[in-house]
């Protein structure tokens, strides 16, 4: 709850561009970090804590709000706060010159609050609430520099895609409630939980309270999968992540490397008992496909952050695939290690981009500071950053002695084991995973070589620039050291080569595989040797020792460079259809509905005109006629007193005549 408090405090210091807000947010995160370590120590493999309180009641249904702390939540809590802490420190330096410094930290604190709350809540309803809040804070942060058109489009795209996922998640929650009549995660998915091991007999999804047709189970799982795909950027909902790189780099580090995208995998972890084997298979296939696709795209991208974004998609594909093949513990293990080294890579990218922006501003150039074609040779100028980048890169590739090795090879080995028990077609999954690992090696090496080795290529384009690059202040260095240490193996397991001894494994029950299987030694050895070879090859190619062996114009290149044209397809098919539909609706609204509403005043005006006419002519007319009559009568009678003697005579005559006539008549 502390980050929420920090966020509120920050928003109460209005309009100031002060450093204090940064330190308040950092202090809050530090406190949360400490608290989560304490919680972790108490909960990990010791016992589960579950506190609840009655929130509200609708009819017969009681809704509880509470906190569930089991191994999964404690681990995620620790992970989020430990990653958020260096990012906060880094941000105080990175955003130093930005005008919206305080707004940044408000959003950042809000995001941390949402994420921390997401991992500890115990009810599906609250989970959904915080899921949405996380998506919303991500929207705010991606579009942080909202004066840039691209940033605004990117955050809209991210939010819309997340929304699609939210719909899926909501459907799944509702279906689960209809089936099991409870929202409580512990009841649904805990030990011997209600939703575990669903039984589908005769096409009916059986549960305690009765059965629903089996189709609902598939829809529920489909809904969960949609939520995961949107949040964790799986195919087909992955296109928002590369565009989300428009936000500040520290945000990309926190959200899109370590935490928010991990929320999807976390959800999978929570609802894992619900899936049937068939659904798990589908999950594995999609995860593998995503990983492969993203790795191929990352091979040709020229924007530093986009390479990292596709790398994230690829690694998330690994995690989802691991969930699918039943390697629950490996998947979460990979989640944790990935968080550290990806965050480190992003922070390094942030430093490099920052320096390029300085150069750009100092020399008034018109280059894209994120483009790696302009970088090179930064190894000598930013040695500290270079070392950190190399450590993170090796962890990403998964070489021994790093933490990435432990998790990734765990997944690979289990994948091969899993496919052994399936039909031949499923062999493709581990093969795909292994190929993706090699592709990962290649593109990571390419990236590091292009950025850090060779000559500073910008000089070749613009020969007369002056520049200086440095590593940055203590905030950058301390952060990098912290994260780099976590990328190495001692943090996770005392044995650098055997993944089962990692302490995370002990926390989750998963498929325990006997060590006797020969795959356990062949696969890591083979994969890693080839990776090393690939790294060497990449280094050789990109430092110019050999000529460029890859054509830049072939079909595969184009396919990869344009991100498999997925964005374009979406644009043509979906976006245009939706825009056309919305145009039609707005035409309808404008002409018909507004027309109808405009008709009403016209009618009223016409009515009022008629009334005015009636009032003017008829009613006034009556009174005018009366007045006229009175006037005539008055004029007539006045004459008799007018003083004209002839009228006096006339009136005398008239009276005498009247008398005579009356006399004769009577």
């Amino acid at each position, binding site marked *: 709850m502390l980050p929420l408090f920090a966020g509120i405090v920050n928003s109460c210091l209005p309009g100031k561009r002060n450093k204090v807000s940064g330190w308040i947010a950092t202090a809050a995160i530090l406190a949360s970090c400490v608290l989560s370590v304490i919680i972790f120590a108490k909960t990990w493999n010791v016992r589960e804590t579950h506190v609840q309180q009655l929130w509200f009641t609708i009819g017969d249904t009681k809704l509880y709000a509470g906190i569930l702390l089991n191994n999964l939540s404690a681990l995620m809590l620790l992970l989020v706060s430990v990653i958020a802490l260096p990012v906060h420190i880094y941000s105080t330096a990175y955003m130093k010159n930005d005008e919206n410094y305080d707004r940044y930290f408000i959003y950042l604190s809000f995001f941390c609050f949402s994420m921390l709350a997401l991992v500890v809540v115990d009810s599906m309803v609250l989970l959904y609430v915080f899921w949405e809040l996380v998506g919303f804070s991500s929207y705010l942060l991606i579009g942080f520099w909202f004066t840039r058109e691209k940033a605004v489009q990117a955050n809209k795209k991210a939010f819309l895609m997340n929304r699609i996922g939210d719909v899926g998640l909501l459907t799944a929650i509702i279906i689960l409630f209809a089936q099991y009549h409870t929202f409580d995660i512990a009841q649904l998915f805990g030990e011997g939980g209600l939703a575990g091991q669903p039984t589908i007999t005769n096409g009916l999804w059986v549960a305690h309270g009765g059965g629903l047709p089996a189709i609902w189970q598939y829809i529920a799982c489909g809904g969960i999968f949609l939520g995961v795909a949107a949040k964790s950027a799986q195919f087909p909902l992955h296109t928002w992540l590369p565009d989300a790189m428009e936000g500040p780099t520290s945000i990309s580090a926190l959200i899109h490397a370590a935490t928010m995208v991990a929320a999807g995998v976390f959800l999978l972890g929570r609802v894992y008992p619900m899936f049937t084997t068939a659904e798990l298979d589908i999950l594995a296939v999609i995860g593998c496909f995503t990983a492969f696709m993203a790795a191929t795209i990352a091979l040709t991208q020229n924007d530093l952050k986009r390479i990292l974004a596709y790398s994230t998609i690829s690694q998330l594909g690994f995690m989802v695939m691991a969930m699918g093949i039943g390697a629950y513990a490996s998947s979460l293990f990979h989640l944790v290690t990935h968080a550290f080294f990806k965050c480190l890579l992003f922070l390094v990218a942030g430093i490099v981009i920052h320096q390029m922006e300085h150069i750009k501003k100092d020399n008034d150039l018109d280059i894209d500071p994120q483009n790696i074609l302009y970088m090179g040779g930064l190894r000598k100028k930013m040695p500290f950053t270079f070392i950190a980048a190399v450590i993170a890169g090796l962890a990403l590739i998964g070489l021994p002695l790093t933490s990435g090795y432990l998790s990734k090879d765990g997944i690979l080995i289990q994948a091969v084991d899993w496919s052994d028990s399936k039909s031949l077609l499923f062999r493709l999954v581990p093969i795909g995973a292994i190929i993706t690992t090699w592709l990962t090696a290649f593109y990571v090496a390419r990236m590091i070589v292009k950025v850090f080795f060779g000559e500073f290529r910008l000089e070749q384009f613009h020969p007369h620039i002056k520049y200086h690059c440095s590593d940055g202040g203590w905030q950058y260095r301390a952060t990098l050291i912290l994260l780099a240490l976590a990328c190495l193996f001692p943090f996770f397991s005392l044995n650098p080569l055997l993944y089962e001894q990692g302490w995370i494994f002990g926390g989750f029950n998963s498929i325990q595989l006997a060590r006797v299987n020969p795959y356990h030694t062949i696969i890591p050895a083979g994969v890693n040797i080839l990776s090393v070879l690939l790294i060497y090859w990449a280094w050789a190619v990109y430092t110019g020792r050999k000529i460029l062996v890859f054509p830049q114009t072939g079909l595969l290149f184009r396919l990869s460079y344009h991100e498999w044209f997925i964005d374009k397809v979406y644009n043509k098919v979906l976006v245009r259809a939706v825009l056309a539909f919305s145009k039609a609706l707005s035409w309808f609204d404008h002409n018909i509905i507004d027309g109808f509403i405009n008709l009403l005043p016209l009618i009223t005006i016409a009515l009022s005109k008629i009334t005015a006419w009636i009032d003017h002519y008829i009613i006034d007319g009556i009174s005018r006629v009366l007045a006229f009559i009175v006037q005539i009568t008055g004029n007539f009678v006045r004459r008799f*007193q007018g*003083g004209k003697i002839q009228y006096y*005579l*006339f009136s005398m*005559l008239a009276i005498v005549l009247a008398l005579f006539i009356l006399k004769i008549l009577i």
Partner: protein
Amino acid sequence: MISLTDFLMVSAALFCIGLYMIVSKHNAIQILIGIELMLNAAILNLVAFGKYDKIANGGQVFALFAIVLAAATTAVALAIILNVYKKYKTIDPGRINNLKD
């Protein structure tokens, strides 16, 4: 022969014409003429009924007296009109309305 009724009708006609002139003329002299006409109509009536008094001829005698008086009246009326003209500078009876309320 000319009957009595004809004389009476003529005299009535003259009387009405005289009355009309009095009532509707805007000139005092013309009102005077109207008065004269009415007088003459009355005198004609007197003479017409004098046929029945062959001994003392009362009708005709009365008529002579009436004519003389008519002349005297007319002289006085003219004198009045002259004085009125001196004061009001007009002889339109409609304009002389100081007696109105």
